[in-house]
């Protein structure tokens, strides 16, 4: 893929290097020549100095044949504008914008941009790491049909077997975290107190997990 990255900060430079190592053709753009120092010495892609919201500069960087543009500067507004130019002016197929502020996710989606909301991602990760309870959405698959969620196994589930809790085509415990180690869930495994369960759930049932387990919301 031919990928343009706008913004060569710590995120942009890491992304550029990773995608380049994955074998993609990468051009990374930054206003400040200085920023390219963040790229490792062996970086295989191209760098271009310029403003990511400058139509002419994007053209010079080859946006007309780009398969994707990732707007990763530290400014939500710059990212949203660069992404919209890529989408609406040049018709780039995959366009992502890094956002800090969650309130801009809806606007991005309305404009056909895939939001990368770091705040949302960070909050989810921290809640997951803290294991405070409740059902935590970790990942949305496909167009959102299936979600991967995690939850701490409530006491009342101790001793229940994985297969007893499966709802064919609707809900399945895929893996569990036990004493700091992750295990793929076998049908005959018994749930223990202190386990964290990783479940795949059809999106329309994501709020029905207590009912699936036959427990109350408070027990989660």
């Amino acid at each position, binding site marked *: 893929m031919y990928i343009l990255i706008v913004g060569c900060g710590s995120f942009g430079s890491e992304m550029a290097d990773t995608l380049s190592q994955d074998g993609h053709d990468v051009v990374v753009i930054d206003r400040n020549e200085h920023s390219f120092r963040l790229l490792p010495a062996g970086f295989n892609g191209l760098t271009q100095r310029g403003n990511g*919201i*400058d*139509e*002419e500069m994007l053209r010079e960087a080859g946006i007309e044949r780009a398969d994707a543009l990732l707007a990763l500067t530290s*400014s*939500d*507004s*710059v990212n*949203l*504008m660069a992404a*919209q*130019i890529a989408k*609406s*002016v040049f018709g780039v197929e995959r366009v992502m914008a890094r956002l800090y*502020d969650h*309130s*801009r996710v*809806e*606007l991005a989606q*309305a*404009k056909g941009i895939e939001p990368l909301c770091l705040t949302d991602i960070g909050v989810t990760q921290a809640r997951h790491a803290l294991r405070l309870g409740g059902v935590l959405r970790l990942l949305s698959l496909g167009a959102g049909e299936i979600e991967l969620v995690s939850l701490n196994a409530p006491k009342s589930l101790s001793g229940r077997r994985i297969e007893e809790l499966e709802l064919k085509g609707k809900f399945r415990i895929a893996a569990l975290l036990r004493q700091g180690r992750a295990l793929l869930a076998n049908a005959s495994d018994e749930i223990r107190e202190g386990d964290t369960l990783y479940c795949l759930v059809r999106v329309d049932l994501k709020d029905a997990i207590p009912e699936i387990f036959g427990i109350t919301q408070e027990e989660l």
Partner: protein
Amino acid sequence: MRSIVVGGGKVGYYLARELKRAGHEVTLIERDEAHARRVAEKLDIEVILGDSAHPHTLADARADEADVLAAVTGLDEENLLVCQIAKLKFGIKKVIARVNNPENEKIFKLLGLDEAVSSTSIIASLIEREIGFSRLKSLLRLEEVGMELIEVELEPNSPLAGKTIEALSKHLPKASIVATVLRDGQAILPRGDTKLEPSDTLLLLAKPEAKGKLEDAFGEKAR
């Protein structure tokens, strides 16, 4: 009318002041505390300190009741974002974005903002109008061929009245030609012997470098 002005720099300050004078209920949003305080001290309007592109700030400014929002900060990307959020989340029908970089005027329109105001373009059109005071008005620029279509209205007592096109042409620069004479709502294709009448309007085709001499021909000197 209830208006929201985003940005408390020079443009925002004067815009808010004029709107207030025109009887608008104005709220100004500014993210910099010192700027916000300065505006609040000078103008008797509501000033909100905050990030204008954040829905909370717009909600504080009662954006849902606003008739119009003008985003006039010095950053084009901020102005775009605020206008888009105002439209999407608050349904403000009339949003106006200041364009600092004239290149972005076209982009803003492509991205769905109908009202993009570029100060550079405004100054250019003002200058154009100034030139219009000497009766030369640029109607159309044919950029590809480097020509301009210029309108000149003769005054009722114009000394050019009664002269033929041939006689007039002697006073016109080489890089210009009288293409049409408009008289009483009719277009006349001029010949050398066509006589000019008072209050005729001439349409000229000219190269940009000829404009100075055209000024002389139709301005003070010709009278």
